[in-house]
């Protein structure tokens, strides 16, 4: 049946490069992948020889990397498979901008749900440091229209800053004040960066031997607005990282999953939405959420939502219709009808910029559109910092990006969505102290979680929901 999985699929083991880094000249891209795969396979108690036999007889391999430009290597997935000793195997590359990693994990799940494989490893990598930051920004900007938007000075921090401006122009004076939004932006930036200080493998962790002193360590609220405007109205510390990194996640059918681990995490929902690559072509339809039937079940029951959404131009440049679509599809598959803020214990979302967190919380239906800021405004501040890994949204709320996310942990594009899946898996398996080197970021007893992967200015977005299987 459309919109369902033909059989149960579980995430069973994950791995990451030993250290995410702005630059790691010690490892080529497939050597980073080796560290991640070695960890994921080793954690299952399998010898590489046993794992490779399983892959060959019953499995498959998905490789994800984003821009061939970064490593200057086409078909890098073949070199990665070679280095990992996977040949011959059923394998292909998945790519979709910033959502590359998330799409790869979903492809691995689909491969098993379809019956084509019983076990799949999805491996993501990106090596972004071999060009300088300006060149890197330009490569990423090539993932906007190179005929129209890119020659007009477009690059990603600016595209998001323009969306932040659109968000301000849409909601300030209606649902929120400009000061409240800026306060939320800064608190989000501090939350991500400081969470990452308890994740020793994070790029900005003061314990990471590859971290540079100017881009690691704790930050305070005032550091954010002191970091300087990159593109109005966004500050440098509002923006995510560029990373050399890799990660890997192993997924399996139920029988095999249960034979390999006593802690399988089952996939309950997959959603994948799209919208126009040129933001200027997105619809600006008054009442668009209603007209396009994009409201979530819990929103339909609330007259306040209806009133707000009847007038709201949607998606405009302030929101991601692709994210709302992906969430709606995933929730439908998972049978989620209640308030998502109360359903999930933990989410790892694509915080490419602080504005994306505000936008994404609304796309995911955690709060009504225009209302995200207050989730973060509520956080207490002590000595210029919000608490480490705070619960968001009150007693029945959830934890957002304990890992540090793209702002604190890593954004090595082809690996990012894959890394988020690994973080969620480790959280649910209770492995955070072992994997991050600190217990502070362990979410207490998570049963349901979500990970979200995002491309372009919201051209391709995935939402995957999972639940504990024991």
């Amino acid at each position, binding site marked *: 049946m459309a919109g369902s999985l033909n059989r149960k699929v579980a995430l069973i083991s994950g791995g990451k490069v030993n250290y995410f*880094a*702005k*630059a*790691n*000249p*010690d490892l080529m891209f497939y050597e980073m992948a080796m560290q991640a795969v070695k960890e994921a396979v080793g954690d299952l108690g399998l010898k590489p020889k046993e794992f490779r036999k399983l892959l060959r007889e019953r499995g498959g391999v998905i490789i994800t990397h984003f821009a061939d430009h970064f490593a*200057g290597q086409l078909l890098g997935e073949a070199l990665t498979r070679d280095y990992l000793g996977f040949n011959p195997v059923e394998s292909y590359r998945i790519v979709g901008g910033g959502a590359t990693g998330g799409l790869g994990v979903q492809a691995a799940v689909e491969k098993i749900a379809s019956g084509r494989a019983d076990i799949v490893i999805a491996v993501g990598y990106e090596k972004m*440091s071999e060009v300088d*930051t*300006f*060149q890197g*920004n*330009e490569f990423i*900007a090539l993932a906007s*229209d190179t*005929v*129209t*938007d*890119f*020659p*007009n*000075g*477009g*690059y990603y*921090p*600016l*595209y998001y*800053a*323009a*969306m*932040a*401006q*659109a968000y301000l*122009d849409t909601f300030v004076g209606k649902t929120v004040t400009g000061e409240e939004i800026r306060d939320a932006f800064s608190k989000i930036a501090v939350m991500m960066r400081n969470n990452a200080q308890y994740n020793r493998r994070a790029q900005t962790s003061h314990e990471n*031997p*590859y971290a*540079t002193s100017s881009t690691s360590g704790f930050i305070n609220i005032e550091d954010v607005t002191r970091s*300087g*405007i*990159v*593109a*109005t*109205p*966004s500050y*440098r510390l509002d923006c995510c990282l560029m990373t050399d990194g890799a990660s890997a996640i192993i997924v399996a059918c139920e029988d095999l999953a249960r034979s390999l681990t006593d802690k399988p995490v089952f996939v309950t929902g997959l959603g994948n939405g799209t919208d126009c690559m*040129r*933001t*200027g*072509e997105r619809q600006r339809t008054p009442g668009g959420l209603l007209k396009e039937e994009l409201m979530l079940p819990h929103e339909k029951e609330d007259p306040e939502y209806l009133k707000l959404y009847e007038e709201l131009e949607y998606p405009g*440049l302030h929101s991601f219709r692709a994210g709302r679509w992906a969430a709606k599809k995933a929730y439908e598959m998972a049978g989620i009808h209640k308030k998502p803020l109360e359903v999930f214990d933990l989410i790892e979302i694509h915080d490419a910029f602080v504005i994306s967190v505000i936008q994404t919380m609304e796309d995911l239906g955690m709060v009504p559109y225009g209302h995200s800021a207050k989730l973060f405004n509520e956080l207490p501040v002590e000595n210029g910092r919000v608490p480490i890994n705070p619960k968001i949204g009150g007693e029945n709320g959830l934890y957002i990006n304990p890992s540090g996310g793209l702002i604190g942990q890593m954004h090595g594009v082809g690996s990012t969505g894959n890394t988020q899946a690994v973080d969620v898996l480790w959280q649910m398996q209770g492995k955070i102290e072992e994997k991050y080197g600190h217990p502070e970021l362990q979410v207490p007893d998570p049963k349901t979680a979500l990970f979200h992967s995002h491309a372009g200015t919201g051209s391709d977005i995935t939402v995957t929901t999972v639940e504990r299987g024991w």
Partner: protein
Amino acid sequence: MPVKDTILNRQDKAYRHARTDVVIVQREVHIKYKKSYGGMSPYIRGIMGREHARLLYTICDKAEDHDDLKPLRFQVPRADCPECYAPTHWQELPGDTRFIVETFSTAVDLAGISFMDQLPVTVAWIKAVLPDDENTELDTLVAGMVHSEDYKKLKKGDDVRPVFRKNPASNASDVMWVLLGTAVEKFPSGYVESKNYRVQKNF
């Protein structure tokens, strides 16, 4: 695609991040593309017209085959309609079309390598409103660079006017935008007014 590798000497900052004894080379790659604008070519030709430049858009009027049962107007123009797959028709934006800033941002610090020497660069998403009785809006916004004396004063709803490159680069940046009423001496360097779109005109 000529590729040239040169060893980087040990003093190069690329080695600073290394924790093992690695060899690093500088690889230079030069690529030339012969890039066609295909069915969009009339638009590019229009903005390459210097003092005679024109802004073209395309329309599909097969309203009954569209999701919202209305004609669709595209700028960025496209040769084919995405909703009914019929070929679109070219139209010219009249001189008294209003151009209004919908949203914008100014890059002040970081940029892609092509723009790093030109900062600050303001990019706006601009709405075109036709001078007909219904004030019909084009269905899409177009992204463009806005040159202004003080980028901090730019806001949503500002009226802007197109100016065109005197020596066209034959790409989308042959049109830039200035605030309505901007004096000629405040135009971005190398850009001129088109006789088809007066910058001083009041609406």
